[in-house]
């Protein structure tokens, strides 16, 4: 069953069409990622669910109830903002308690639930701290805790990890995934980072120019992108025209060496250069008028002839007419 459903949603601001006829079903308990290049309308879609971006057309439902006409405070969607939006005039505990206070939860109960949430976030020692005294990772966790403390049916996350440095991001990514699994909360997360989407989501919604291009599980999206632009966005960096179609593959899945391997695609060319990529060499080849890149076990001297071999399963075929559509 879809916990959250968008039906033919369009959003226009002035002349600009930010979202075009977007329809989407978010299954209950799923971790769904909105993935796409910056400016494609991901945040706008998320904000439309929260009630901050009025629809020009379409409907949004939670369960079978339409929420399109409700003000944000009555939608029961909990959002974690990209900037975290923690209230600086309240300390950590007060930030967590405020949503409960708004719901008329008694003081004792508030204190109990705030303490339990801080415990779960492993931040029990921070209850009395001002927001300014927290690190980025701690702020992120408090923002998440503040959203979760109301037991919302839907959790909305706008690039929750993008303001953090790489090490913290990986830790928090795992934490976020575990927490979502344990609570079983329907989650819709925005990200422009494909690695993040692939590792976190069980469903990825790929967007471009205010439209949904593809909805798929991470593996399907990675191995069978809907079109060439999507493939490129997902790191497919080699294109070989063949007849009326284009064959595409990732250099990480192609082999370069002095001899050809058994493979679906084999081409001979000359080495342009070799750069070490940690564990293997990234080798650029000039093949006829094309430039292709593949990985090799050893560095190859520039100008020497070499073969590029791509296994069948790494090849993606895109028909020209479908790509143009």
């Amino acid at each position: 069953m879809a916990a959250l459903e968008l039906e033919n949603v369009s959003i226009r601001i002035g002349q600009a069409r930010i979202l075009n006829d977007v329809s989407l079903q978010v299954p209950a308990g799923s971790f769904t990622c909105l993935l796409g290049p910056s400016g494609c309308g991901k945040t706008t879609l998320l904000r439309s669910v929260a009630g901050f971006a009025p629809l020009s057309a379409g409907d949004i439902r939670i369960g079978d109830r339409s929420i399109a006409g409700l003000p944000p405070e009555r939608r029961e969607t909990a959002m974690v903002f990209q900037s975290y939006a923690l209230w600086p005039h309240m300390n950590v505990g007060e930030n967590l308690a405020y949503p409960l206070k708004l719901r008329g939860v008694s003081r004792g109960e508030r204190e109990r639930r705030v303490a339990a949430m801080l415990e779960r976030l492993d931040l029990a020692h921070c209850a009395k701290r001002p927001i300014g005294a927290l690190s980025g990772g701690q702020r992120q966790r408090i923002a998440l805790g503040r959203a979760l403390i109301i037991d919302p049916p839907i959790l909305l996350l706008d690039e929750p990890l993008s303001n953090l440095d790489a090490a913290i991001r990986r830790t928090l990514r795992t934490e976020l995934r575990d927490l979502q699994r344990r609570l079983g909360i329907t989650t819709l997360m925005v990200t422009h980072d494909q690695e993040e989407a692939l590792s976190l989501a069980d469903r990825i919604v790929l967007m471009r120019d205010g439209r949904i291009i593809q909805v798929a599980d991470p593996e399907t999206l990675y191995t069978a992108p809907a079109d060439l632009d999507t493939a490129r966005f997902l790191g497919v960096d080699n294109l070989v025209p063949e007849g009326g179609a284009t064959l595409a593959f990732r250099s990480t899945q192609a082999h370069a060496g002095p001899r050809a391997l058994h493979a679906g695609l084999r081409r001979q060319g000359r080495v342009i250069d070799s750069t070490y990529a940690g564990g293997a060499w990234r080798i650029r080849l000039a093949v006829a008028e094309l430039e292709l890149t593949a990985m090799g076990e050893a560095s190859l001297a520039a100008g020497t002839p070499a073969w590029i071999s791509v296994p069948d399963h790494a090849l993606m075929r895109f028909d020209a007419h479908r790509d143009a559509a």
Partner: protein
Amino acid sequence: MTLLRLPARLLGGLMLPLLLGLTAFVVFGPLINLAMWAFTEQWFFPNRFPSQWGFAFWERVFRPRAGAWEALYHSVTVALAAVALSLALAIPAAYALARLALPLRSLIMLVFLLPQAFPNLPIFVNIAAMFYGLGLNGTLFGVVLVHSLPGLVYAVWIATAAFSAVDRSLEEAARNLGAGPLRTFLGVTLPQALPGLIAASIFVFLDSIDEFTGTYFVGTPDITTLPILMFNASMGGNYQIAAITALILLVPSVGFMLIIERFLKADVLARIGR
């Protein structure tokens, strides 16, 4: 080279204290003169200093019938009321302005400032004529209204800046987690804009405390504030009384700022350190 540089550096080293001293003299010179007058009993023209010092005039100023206490009371009540009135009007106006798109906002604020560019004497004369018809001349309320006029302009300008600086995602977070628009305003927006609003109230208070022209046209002779008292004393050649009144004028100003600062410390300084 070094020989040449030495005098230059010496000059540079002397320059700063010299400039500082000069600035201090320009700023504080008149104040020192004023302070001397306040404790003078006799001071004849060519002398650089008073020939006789004393507190005799202080006693005269604070004599119950001299009117200083009443003027002080008027000044403070009028200033507090002007602060309350200006802010009560400025807060909703500024909030609405801060939410407008930028070019329109700037335009409205500029228009708002326009009357201030006018010489204010004819304005006050007109207001006095209007107030006369409304029976507001010579009332405290009339004086409060006149003081709120420039006060409102300050307050709207400063409060608009304060509200514009509030991060909208803070308000959205509150809405998202269950607060209605009013609750969001009171619980998030207002506390965030508080330093600016306090700055605005200090401006309005200080402006009202030494407002003269409007009070003169609308208030006198029924309402005497400290500046009016001072004016009357000066016109009567009584520099001691004028000087003492000026010093008294400092009391509510400094007091108001101290109270506000004490009140600010815990809350706002914590936030600035963010």
